[in-house]
Each structure stands twice: as structure tokens, then as C-alpha cells.
């Protein structure tokens, strides 16, 4: 599903380009990927909206990289896709990367779809804004959609400047009617409004400066464009959510200090979203105990806190305590567990991910997501009955 003309044009251009160049040079490329069947059980019984207790899903990713012009240029395709038993919104193909890059000495040019991550935190990614989040995949918003862009990087000893021009906006996917977890109402795809008159075609713009100064990794960024997060309002006649995308103007900073086994992290933005200005900040500390009890295993402890001066924001006063246990064995076994809680209220939830390699091309994942007591007023209350266990097996090729 090539969903717009911009992407289709690039696709045709590169297929022709590849066809022509492959006759001139021996094509130097890498290709790899995986397919991953998944099975989930919802342990609170039927969902609030009568969704199924069981779900099966197939996820896959393929990456193709071709090095051109003796390594001065590169063409990358990286696509993900899913076919879900129950949720229509989780049947998709997305070109996370579909890009051509050219490198001069200090300057790099890039055209196409790309994933760009900004920030340092494990849980609360306040600064990250370039890519749209796929909320059907994950309500925390960590799964992204490829963003069409043209970008320029200029690197000097004192840091790097990146400029991004984004000519096409991608609307946020939400879980569908049969999806689990899902919002109280469906999000109506036929009722979407924008503050910008150019709507999806608004040229979004971003600038970032980043540098490494000894123990510090710092980034300063500014974004001006369609907010990736829409305002949802229930429509009494359709019983669905209407969405509105305001224009966002956001200035952000992210800093990490690495001091031996200690990591100190801070992200903050000041943003004008539509007509309102707000401040968000999140930060934390991570400490790793190495070779615990004279074994090869390491234990990392992560504490993060998020603040937002908007009272209705779901992350206005939240904390997380996490553990990362890496056995450093032949199977690369690891366990990540996190307890997320609202500082003032009683809401809390627990998430854990265990993974272990079975052999060279097979890996097993086991995810646990448990919702504890959740205040009625809390954003996550609508997901209260969606505690789940998920088993995934990835086959790499």
C-alpha cells in the first residue's frame, strides 16, 4: 500500500535508478528481515467492547540496503507489516525507510521515508516528534510510521545541524473496533480537521543541533508543523471521535550525562499547540550493577519521572521504576520490567518483556502487561480490562 503520490514517485524513480545503475556497477547490497507470529491472551475476560479474549497476529520486517557510488550514496528500503486476526487497523504495510542518501564531506542529503528519533529517555519521550506514532500497535506510542522528508545534515567538530522538510503528513492510526486495547469510541477517519489550511500537505519543518561534549550528549531542536497528536472529541451523532490536528511549534532540549555506571537523562519542551502554550519535562537516572554475584549478568535500575503543566495530559505527573536484567549468556536472555504509576492518584500498571534466542535464526519473546488499580479519571482507565500475556516467535532470514 503506497499511500500517496509522493511516495509512489520516489518508488518509481528509484526502481528506474536501480535498474540503470545495476548494469554499470556490481550491485553491493545487504538484505535481511524477520517474520514473527504472535499470540495474545487477555486475562480479564471479554473486553469492554466485547472484543475477543484471544488474538493471533503476524508481524514482519524486511530491510534492503544498497551501497552506490563507491559508498558515497546509499539506498534503503525497510518495511514493516502486520496481519492481525481481529483488528482491521492492524492490517498494514509501512515503509519505515524508503530513502536515498548522498554524502559529501561535511554534508549529507536525504530524500524519502525515514525514522528519526530524538531524545534520551527510556519511557517518557517528550522531545521526539518527527514520526507519527502508530497507536494501534502500542498505546505508549513507541511504534512509528515512516515520515516522508528531504533532509540536510551539516557536521562540524562542534556538532551537527540537521534540517528537515516534511511535505506530507501522516494521520495517527488508532486501534479499530475489534482492537484491544482501544479507546472508548472509534476514531472517525472521515471526520478529521486541521488548523492548517494546507492540511496534510502542510510543509512541516524541523531543525536540530546535536553534539557530544565529553560525558554529555546534548540536542537542541525546534519543530513547526502539524501536531502528531490530534485532539479527540466525541461526536454525539456518530458516536465516534472527531479528530483535529492543531499546528505545533515546539522547542526542545535533551541531555544525557554518562558517568561510569550512572546515566542521567533530561528532556524538556516548551510548545505552542494551537493557541495554548505548555511545558513538558521528563528525566531520570539509570544505574547498572555489573557482574552481579560474580556471574556474567548485569542489572540496570531505571527511574524516570514525567511532568506536564497541562492538567488533562496523561503524563502530567507520572513515574516509572524499571529493571533491566541481561544475563549476557549465549542466548542473550534478558528481562525488562517496569512499574508505571501516577504520583498523585492510585493508578498503576506493570509491564515486562522477556526475550531469549533459541538458535541462530529464531528468537522467543514473552510480554506481560498488567493493569492494576486505575482511577476512573485516568486516561488509562479505558484499558483497565485489557491486561494481557503475549508470546512471539521471530524467525530471521
Amino acid at each position, binding site marked *: 500500500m503506497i499511500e500517496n503520490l509522493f511516495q509512489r514517485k520516489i518508488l518509481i524513480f528509484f526502481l528506474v535508478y536501480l535498474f540503470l545503475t545495476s548494469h554499470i556497477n556490481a550491485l553491493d547490497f545487504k538484505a535481511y528481515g524477520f517474520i514473527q507470529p504472535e499470540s495474545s491472551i487477555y486475562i480479564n475476560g471479554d473486553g469492554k467492547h466485547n472484543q475477543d479474549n484471544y488474538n493471533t497476529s503476524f508481524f514482519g520486517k524486511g*530491510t534492503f540496503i544498497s551501497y552506490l557510488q563507491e559508498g558515497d550514496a546509499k539506498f534503503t528500503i525497510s518495511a514493516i507489516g502486520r496481519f492481525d486476526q481481529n483488528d482491521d487497523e492492524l492490517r498494514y504495510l509501512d515503509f519505515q525507510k524508503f530513502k536515498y542518501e548522498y554524502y559529501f564531506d561535511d554534508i549529507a542529503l536525504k530524500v524519502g521515508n525515514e525514522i528519526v528519533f530524538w531524545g*534520551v529517555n527510556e519511557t517518557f519521550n517528550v522531545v521526539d516528534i518527527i514520526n507519527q506514532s502508530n497507536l494501534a500497535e502500542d498505546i505508549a506510542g513507541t511504534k512509528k510510521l515512516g515520515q516522508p522528508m528531504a533532509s540536510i545534515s551539516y557536521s562540524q567538530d562542534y556538532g551537527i545541524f540537521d534540517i528537515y522538510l516534511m511535505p506530507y503528513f501522516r494521520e495517527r492510526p488508532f486501534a479499530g473496533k475489534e482492537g484491544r486495547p482501544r479507546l472508548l469510541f472509534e476514531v472517525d477517519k472521515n471526520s478529521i480537521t486541521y488548523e492548517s489550511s494546507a492540511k496534510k500537505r502542510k510543509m512541516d519543518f524541523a531543525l536540530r543541533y546535536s553534539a*557530544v561534549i565529553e560525558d554529555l550528549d546534548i540536542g537542541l531542536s525546534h519543530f513547526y508543523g502539524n501536531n502528531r497528536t490530534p485532539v479527540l472529541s466525541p461526536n454525539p451523532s456518530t458516536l465516534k471521535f472527531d479528530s483535529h490536528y492543531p499546528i505545533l511549534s515546539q522547542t526542545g532540549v535533551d541531555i*544525557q550525562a554518562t558517568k561510569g555506571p550512572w546515566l542521567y537523562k533530561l528532556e524538556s519542551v516548551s510548545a505552542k499547540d494551537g493557541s495554548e502554550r505548555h511545558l513538558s519535562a521528563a528525566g531520570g537516572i539509570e544505574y547498572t550493577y555489573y*557482574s552481579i554475584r560474580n556471574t556474567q549478568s548485569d542489572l540496570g535500575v531505571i527511574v524516570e519521572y514525567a511532568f506536564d503543566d497541562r492538567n488533562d495530559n496523561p503524563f502530567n505527573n507520572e513515574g516509572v521504576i524499571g529493571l533491566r536484567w541481561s544475563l549476557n549468556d549465549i542466548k542473550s536472555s534478558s528481562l525488562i520490567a517496569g512499574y508505571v504509576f501516577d504520583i498523585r492518584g492510585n493508578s498503576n500498571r506493570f509491564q515486562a518483556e522477556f526475550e531469549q534466542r533459541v538458535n*541462530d535464526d529464531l528468537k522467543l519473546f514473552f510480554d506481560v502487561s498488567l493493569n492494576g488499580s486505575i482511577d476512573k479519571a485516568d486516561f488509562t482507565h479505558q484499558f483497565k480490562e485489557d491486561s494481557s500475556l503475549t508470546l512471539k516467535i521471530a524467525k530471521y532470514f
Partner: protein
Amino acid sequence: MKIYSFLFILILIFNFSSFAETDEEIGLKIAKEAYESTRGYIDSTSEQLMILIDPKGNEVIREISGKNLENMDPDDGDKSLIFFNKPKDVQGTVMLSHTHVNDDDDQWLYLPALGRVKRISSSNKSGAFMGSEISFEDFSGLDYRKYDWKYLGEENYEGEVCYKLESYPKYENSGYTKRIGLTDELLRARKIEYYDRKGDLLKTIYFEDHKLYNDAIWFADTFRVVNHQNDNSTIYKWENRQLNIGLNKKDFEKSSLMRLAD
């Protein structure tokens, strides 16, 4: 005139004869010369193959490729890039290290699943590298600046006379308390025994398949590591090693990780 010549010769003898040096000075001198004989590679690329063998003889394969950049600063360490290829679930992961002599390294990891570069703590140079018996610390084990040295005498090894050297790590987070190694007359390390933090014998690395690169530098193309405590072993092989090929220095910066990855 004669008497002056005699005195001059006498001074020469006292200056250069070995009995004027302590075992520590001789040890340092050999280690320094051995280290300096591996310098001048400028930059290098290689493919690396690891075979991890458990006590039952089960084998697991790891494959990475590497790029290195020599640091001419006498007080600092080299830079390296590691591209992970096998096991397949780590394919696309890239690690950048700016090593330091007696301090934590600076390390960044590009994680393709997240599309994200993370600065990571490197206080654990002694941890298992990809589940093997080799640690990150071992890759720079010939850097004389990282240890205090002591010459223990000569010893025959595989029919050759070798210098026997004891070394004690200066780095506070080292996984070792002591190493005893043999260095041959071409100044090539042949084997090193490692003693853990409790002072017990942990492992031995045998340096094999020595090859003369660019008519100037000897590198061991195989490290055979035997762990005496858990009976695991690792065979670490370098293939297609190339030196002084004119790599771009900028490749070894954080900003290049995304470019070098996917």
C-alpha cells in the same frame, strides 16, 4: 687519552647493561616495544568470526565486521566500529567506541529496531563479548599503558625462547588482578593467563596464526580462549584484515552511526 676511552666504555657498560635495570623496567621496556611494533596501522577493516564452544562441544557462531582508527595521541586510545551480522537477530546493530587508556570508554550503540542511537555505560569492559569468553578489555590487552609490568625471565614455548611478563591492570574496573604472558623474540604475544578479581586463574588466551601485515606489523589472526573455571572456550578469528586503507575519520563519530547503519 687512553684513560678517557676506558672511562667512556665503563660509562657505556653501566648505562646499558641489564643488571642496572629492575625487573619492572625490563618488563615495561619489552611491553612498550611490543606495543609500538603494532602501531602505525593507521586504520583497518576486518571480518571477525567467533566460535563459542561449551564443555559438551556444542558450537555457536558469531559474525561481526570491524573498522579501527589509530589514535596518534600518546595518552588516548583508538576508535572502533563493530557491525553485528550474526546471530541474525542483532543484524544491523552497530557499536562505536572511543577507547581511553585507563578510564571508561565512550560507547554508542545503534539499535535498528528502535531507529535510535544510545550512549551506553562502558564501565563493564570485562563483561562477556557476545556471550563469548573474550571481553572488550582483552582487545586492547597489548597496550602497555594499561598495566604495570614485571619481567619474570625467559621461558621456552613451542620450541622458542620467550620473555615471561607479569602485568597488573591500572584500570580500576578491570576484570583482572594479574596476567602472566609470554612474548616471543619478534615481540609477538603468544599466550596470556588471566587471573580474576579474587586472584584465581580464570582463562588463557593463545595467540595464533601470526601474520605479517604490510611487511611491518605482526597480528595474531586467531585468539583461542580457554576458560578454566567454566570449561567454555572461544575461537576468535580475523579474516580479510586490511591496514592503512584511508578510512574517513568522520565515520568514527556518533553522527555517522545512522549513516553506517540502515
